């Protein structure tokens, strides 16, 4: 370093540019090291999907071939059309979608109304209600599972979609919490002004709060939709007629006593997974903000 600098005219600009260069090299080394950690991790996280996709395009004989084949040749595209006819794939997809959409609509309406009450209307019981709401988050679902099953059985709702939809129309604790936190950040003056103008609470909720809360509402909608799309134990407990099955239950039909149709199963898995991945890809920002919100202390 000392030798080098004596050969060059010791101007201030030069010194500065060398320091910049060192900083740049340091930065490059650092980011190379970081990528060296992140890339293998990314590979591990992607592995199930890569293998799912790869298997979905393989003929039967290649499933367990050694060494493993990642890109099959020839590509067996017929696994996809075969997968949707081997089981009533589109029926199950329609069922899953119907339940997910109906539950999501219900949870959005009810949770936002309740959150409005907790965040924007000063009434005596609201803190107790809020604490009870948070307490339900600590309750394992097994505690309520059996009595709820009995109640729905007495209603004659077992083996229908109702137990998977109706409860969501009465609000979800996590979403009430999320929306309450969001509503609290909106200036109270907006509500006060509307009240002075004689607006009803319903009107304030509808035309002041909701338009300002689109990102939070979108977060709730996405979370609930994906939770219902993935749901396994709900359909497992309540649905027994094949025509009512969701994809989570229907996918078992690729397995028979003769073994699993892995190619078809993986093709179906790709088709179940793809819509959610696309959804995430386009709505990333909302997702990330939403998850960060759940971590904020109340």
């Amino acid at each position, binding site marked *: 370093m000392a030798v080098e600098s004596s050969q060059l005219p010791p101007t201030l600009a030069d010194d500065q540019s060398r320091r910049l260069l060192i900083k740049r090299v340091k930065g490059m080394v650092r980011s190379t090291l970081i990528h060296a950690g992140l890339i293998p991790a990314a590979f591990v996280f992607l592995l199930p999907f890569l293998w799912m996709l790869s298997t979905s395009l393989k003929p039967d004989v290649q499933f367990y071939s050694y060494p493993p084949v990642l890109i099959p040749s020839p590509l067996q595209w017929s696994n996809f059309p075969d997968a949707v006819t081997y089981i009533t794939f589109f029926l199950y997809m329609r069922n899953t979608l119907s339940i997910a959409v109906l539950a999501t609509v219900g949870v959005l309406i009810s949770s936002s109304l309740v959150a409005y009450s907790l965040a924007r209307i000063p*009434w005596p019981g609201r803190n107790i209600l809020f604490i009870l709401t948070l307490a339900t988050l600590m309750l394992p679902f097994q505690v309520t599972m*059996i009595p*709820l099953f009995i109640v729905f059985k007495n209603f004659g709702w077992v083996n229908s979609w109702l137990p998977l939809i109706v409860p969501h129309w009465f609000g979800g604790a996590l979403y009430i919490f999320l929306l309450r936190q969001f509503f609290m950040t909106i200036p109270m003056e907006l509500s006060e002004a509307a009240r002075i103008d004689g607006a009803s609470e319903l009107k304030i909720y509808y035309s002041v709060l909701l338009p300002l809360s689109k990102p939070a509402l979108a977060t709730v909608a996405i979370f609930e939709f994906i939770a219902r799309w993935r749901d396994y*134990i709900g359909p497992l407990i309540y649905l027994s007629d094949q025509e009512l099955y969701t*994809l989570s239950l229907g996918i078992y039909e690729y397995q028979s006593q003769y073994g699993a149709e892995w190619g078809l199963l993986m093709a179906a898995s790709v088709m179940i997974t793809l819509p959610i991945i696309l959804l995430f890809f386009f709505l990333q920002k909302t997702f990330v903000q939403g998850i960060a919100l759940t971590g904020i202390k109340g």
Partner: protein
Amino acid sequence: MATALTTENLSRRRLSQGTRHTINGLLFASPWIVGLLAFWIYPTLASAYYSFTKYNGVRNPQWTGISNYVELFTNDSEFLDAVYNTVYFAVVSIPLAIIFAFGLALMLNAKIRAQVVYRTIYFLPTLVPEVALALVWLFIFTPHSGLIAAPFRAFGMRGPCWLTCAEWARPTLVLLALWIIGQQIILYLAGLQDVPQDLYDAADVDGANFLSKFRNVTVPILTPVIFFHLVTSVIGALNFFAIPYIMTGGTGFPANSTLFYSIYLYKNAFHYLVMGYASAMAWLLFVFTLVVTLLIWRSARLWVFYAGGEE
């Protein structure tokens, strides 16, 4: 304030406004008040009652006192297996999840290219239906012929038996659960982005190296996130159900090593139809969850650092 007349007017208006607020508040909250009573409070109390009865879900429950609880602890080795497996899973998987999620978030937080791509990839497994994920893993982890066996075969080894033998099934499930930490990574990342830069600048002035900055600035600031992760993952780990249930059909194969608490509870309730017995299990789980959560909460004052100085 100005005259007696308007003050009186105001207070009368405020009173009626208070009542109006109460009515409106109750009306807006009414779906959840009903929901809370019907889907949370009533079932919780009902299952407490069922836990002291013999009940098959059809005939009326018969009071049997604490016999369900006694039976669980004295005469049910499957229950003890389920407790052991679940505690094992929680104790091993939670610290690992914290380390991995924190570590990956730290690397992601460096201003690097393709951050969004990495984040998306790490998040993917949390989006996929558990059925699809579990079945792919089952396929990959087929001993001796699945994808996982390939590196072992390359060296002429046989490799572990993964999900097909008792000593490997538990660690394998811990390993698989580590795939689903995308949400936690994002939480840590959000926390890291909130660390005030001037704290690092001050540490630089003091000549602190990377490690001491990490220990004395980054970790303390992130303790609330670790705390949140810990509390939620205890509940998550104790409820571990879908993935082992799908992989084994709930049989607990091999040798009950994948029989988790939730699976055994579900089987008691819906396969064996001993719903009183299953309710006793549910309440034990509830009390255990509460105790563990409270302990973590109490410990928070010892190690969780709040930047604001207050709770």
